[in-house]
């Protein structure tokens, strides 16, 4: 295994969601904090792709913004490995909505040239023109498209432009926050193929954020599943899909609509994601978990590593694995 490109340890981010000062004083309300990201640790392998998956409000986009420095962490560290030039890896970000992330009043040429000009990466205007043309070609557009405005492009082409802009500074690390969820499936396939090709050709490392399990499976080497600000399970892609351990991961995999193998008459689990303002005690998944007991409500499970390389935060999994390690034939209960 290569050295990780990014190591994140015990990262947390709180947001102050208190009422205004005067209201707090008059109504005697305490300060309120939202724990968007709660003590998470992970590392992204160099040249690989780690995906963060989870439902809305689980904190995955907050992690993306923490990693790119758009938010400062409340506690915890992030450490980028040293890149080719001896400095820490440069990170860039691709945003979800290609309609909102490009300035509608700028020509595409200027959008892509801005980082080059701002960071003085090219000395002359002629070199900038060459580089922008090269970037547009890399993402499958023509250099002459630089003269157009963003509104002249379709959603997929706009996302190509924002990839070109992200690549302008020659980053070695790309944070992709739901890069295809605003796109149609046939266009999504074009963008995912482009991102895979760039990874092979330029050796990019991706931190990929998505709620779509099938997209994540296609893109990533490692997957971390988040629930209410915490990582509940992290494993290699094939391990996670072959044997999901955490009950939440099992629920997620169970509920994805599957085109090739539709589950038309499944039993649907009830329950919804609780408000992150008042997360449940202990394991935050316990109110929805079919295997929860008193310990899950009281005690927060820690991440534990298992010998297939996965890390899981669940009391039940820990107990089952401990029982399996000591070969006792009597009471072996495996979750179905």
């Amino acid at each position, binding site marked *: 295994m290569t050295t990780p490109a990014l190591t994140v340890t015990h990262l947390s981010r709180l947001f102050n969601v208190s009422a205004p000062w005067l209201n707090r004083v008059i109504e005697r309300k305490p300060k309120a904090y939202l724990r968007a990201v709660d003590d998470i640790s992970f590392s992204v392998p160099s040249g690989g792709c780690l995906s963060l998956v989870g*439902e*809305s409000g689980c904190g995955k986009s907050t992690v993306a913004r923490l990693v790119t420095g758009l938010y400062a962490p409340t506690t915890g560290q992030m450490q980028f490995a040293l890149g080719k030039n001896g400095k820490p890896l440069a990170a860039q970000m691709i945003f979800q909505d290609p309609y909102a992330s490009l300035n509608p009043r700028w020509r595409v040429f200027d959008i892509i040239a801005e980082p080059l000009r701002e960071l003085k990466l090219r000395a002359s205007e002629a070199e900038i023109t060459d580089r922008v043309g090269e970037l547009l070609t890399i993402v499958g557009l023509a250099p002459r498209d630089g003269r157009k405005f963003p509104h002249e492009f*379709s*959603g*997929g*082409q706009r996302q190509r432009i924002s990839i070109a802009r992200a690549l302008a500074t020659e980053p070695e690390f790309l944070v992709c926050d739901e890069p295809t969820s605003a796109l*149609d*499936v*046939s*266009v*999504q*396939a*074009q963008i*995912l*193929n482009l991102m*895979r090709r760039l990874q092979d050709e330029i050796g990019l490392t991706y931190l990929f954020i998505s*709620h*779509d*399990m*099938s*997209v994540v*499976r*296609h893109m990533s080497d490692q997957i971390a599943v988040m629930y209410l600000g915490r990582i509940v399970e992290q494993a290699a*892609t*094939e391990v996670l*899909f072959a044997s999901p351990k955490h009950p939440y991961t099992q*629920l*997620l*995999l*169970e*509920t*994805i*609509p*599957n*085109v*090739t*193998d*539709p*589950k*038309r008459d*499944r039993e*649907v*689990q*009830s329950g*919804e*994601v609780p408000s992150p303002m008042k997360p449940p005690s202990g394991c935050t998944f316990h109110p929805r978990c079919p295997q929860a007991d008193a310990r899950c409500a009281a005690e927060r499970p820690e991440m534990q590593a298992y010998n297939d390389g996965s890390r899981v935060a669940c009391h039940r999994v820990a107990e089952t694995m401990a029982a399996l390690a000591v070969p006792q034939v009597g009471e072996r209960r495996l979750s179905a």
Partner: protein
Amino acid sequence: MTKTPMLDVRALRVEFPGRHGSVTALADISLTIQPGEILGVVGESGAGKSMTGLAVQGLLEPPGHVAGGEVWLNGRRIDQLSDREMEKVRGREIGAIFQDPLTSLNPLFSVGKQLIETIRLHLPMSRSEARIRAIELLAEVGIPGPEIRVDHFPHQFSGGMRQRVVIALALAARPKLIIADEPTTALDVSIQAQITSLLRRLCKDNGTAVMLVTHDMGVIAETADRVAVMYAGRLVEIGPVADVIDRPSHPYTRGLMGSIPTLGARVPRLQQIDGAMPRLDAIPQGCAFNPRCPQVMPRCRLERPHLQPSGAGQSACWLNQPAQESAA
């Protein structure tokens, strides 16, 4: 199949007049839905799938209008009804579920008030009877504690619960047809599964016909009985869901299926359809898909194919129609 279909759309055509002549948004749409059947309508953005649902309900934004074809609901023609008559059909006979559950509810009224208003508009009931009915409806769509929840406001419900309220509203007058436009798109996957199985259950229990409009093939595969695939305002393929997914006969459907990342085997590269769907004012001559089609033939650039039986369903492609009926 001798039964009258609940919804029968025949050669529907929708046009939007513009400065440079009128734009054809929907052309030659023919489909039927039987009672108790879920028809999935799938396609990319701009393919005209929502427009089909709106046209059936008579909710096209002017200047858009039905320029041809017929819409029959349970043996009665409804596309020629006046606005006032159509108002009675909507809600009473056709229920609608929209994508965003927050904007389809009024934030200023409790869900009970909104339900009671809808019920009394369509059914002859007193306020107290309607309230009992509202509570029954909330229970039917799986909202726990309906007696208490009926007095809550939309913001007190989560996204999935709000969508259940919207479904309850659509069901209020026991419509024969429900048009659900992307009902699960705004929801998380674990909630999405709850809503689709609810739709299936209601459809089977009440014999309601459902038109399920979505871009998500997975939702279609798990919910619909038959599926209609749309491209650039036209139907390219329609058939039983298993056939369309496993043995798509139109090249566009094949490309669409290949471009979906699956949970099964991991492939190094997804199949992609190059290019993008044409704008409605620039639909090429012949088959609308011909510039992107990997199997394009000279005939595709000249003549427009029509839906013809192919396998268990129908598809509009010259590949599946041998030269038997050559146009003179």
